[in-house]
């Protein structure tokens, strides 16, 4: 993995120790501001039957799992374009059907958003991909780092899991 992300600046929003570790191992530096790679990890919402979800809880899941991702990606892409450089957006979260209806809606929307932004920003050199998985270990980190690297230069608009059934 050494060198996959040498010289690249990554901004990770959300919590994933495996991704942080893998990006460091791949040579990326963590950045708070300007970045070449933006990773957004959404926390998994609690699993509740739909009829027990309040609208406020529903909205909180959609805010974190969809709206914040879109707005953050748009800001990131705008900054890349302003610099005249390509970039990488990577969304990470739980599988569509793994939790509640809030997650199903957010993850489904995110998947098709990924496919859309991947094409809309392709000629800006900005790739957009999503990992939807229950996995939180090393493979998640390694896959995230690979997708963020130039080795995945021909992968955009892709939505994938890790474990069987993701």
């Amino acid at each position, binding site marked *: 993995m050494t060198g*996959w992300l040498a010289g690249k600046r990554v901004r990770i929003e959300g919590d994933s120790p495996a991704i942080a570790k893998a990006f460091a191992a791949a040579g990326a530096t963590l950045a708070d501001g300007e970045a070449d790679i933006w990773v957004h990890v959404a926390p998994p919402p609690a699993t509740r039957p739909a009829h027990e979800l309040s609208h406020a809880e529903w909205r909180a899941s959609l805010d974190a799992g969809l709206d914040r991702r879109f707005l953050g990606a748009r800001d990131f892409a705008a900054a890349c374009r302003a610099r005249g450089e390509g970039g990488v957006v990577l969304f990470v979260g739980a599988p569509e059907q793994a939790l509640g209806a809030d997650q199903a809606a957010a993850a489904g929307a995110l998947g098709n958003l990924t496919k859309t932004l991947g094409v809309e920003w392709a000629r800006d050199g900005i790739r957009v991909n999503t990992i939807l998985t229950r996995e939180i270990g*090393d493979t998640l980190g390694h896959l995230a780092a690979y997708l963020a690297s130039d080795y995945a230069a021909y992968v955009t608009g892709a939505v994938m899991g*890790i474990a069987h059934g993701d």
Partner: protein
Amino acid sequence: MPVPVHHIVALPPPFDAPPYPADIFAGQVVLVTGGGSGMGLAMAKAFAQGGADVAVMGRSLDRAQEGAAQIAALGARTHAMSCDVRLPAAVAAAFDEAEEALGPIGLLANNAGANFPVLAEDISPNAWNAVTRIAIDGTFLCSTEYARRRIAAGKGGAIVNNSAQYIWTGFPGDAHSAAAKTAQATMTKKLAADWAPHGIRVNAIAAGFFPHEGSVSARREEGVEPLQNMIPAGRTGSIWEFGWLSAMTCTPLFGAMTGQVIVQDGGESLRRSLIMPDYVPPRERADGPWGWK
């Protein structure tokens, strides 16, 4: 039309800079079906770059041997052989031959396939059977032969299948391959479930357009250069980046990955718009069923 100069095109590292160390597959043997040329050869080279020994299986022994020579030049031990992957006894015999020559098969890449543009009404029964059964039956027979051997030996393993970017959309002008490649992807998920208890991982790459000497596009008079701008990424794929991603799924770095179908097509399968050029049925396209113009 060339890609406008103000567009940014993301490029992969060069072939001699693979994403994993040269010993990541050390001591392992990979069997690559259709490994003598094209995408299978790219897979085989990627495994060889990680230190694997390579059994190259092809319909044509000559072509398998030519590919094996290129793989051997990377430092791998190789064994070339001829096999029709549609025949169970032939598959079993080929595994025996490969294991006799190189040792137990630890990894499997299912690439064997045939593909050519043809109108659905013009596909002969023989052509239909060839394209679908090489990919569908061949992937099943090679995978099950492999898995039975791994399970009997009490060892896990990894399989990677070469699928295609058109498996979700259909492929007008290529009905046989549309069916065949989707079957490979859907069986990937079920085989992964069946063999998860045995530690055998199964993944697929839904590959986009990776021109090579044997591809139909390479026979166009203009070559592939004019085709770069039709793909959102601004280029066709470099065949080694397909080989790398395929091999990556079999490394311990992706050790928890199974049952996945990863699309690698530069966004080609996604480029649709609500307003698009007039629809032309494949049989009325001026340059044939695939209609590149």
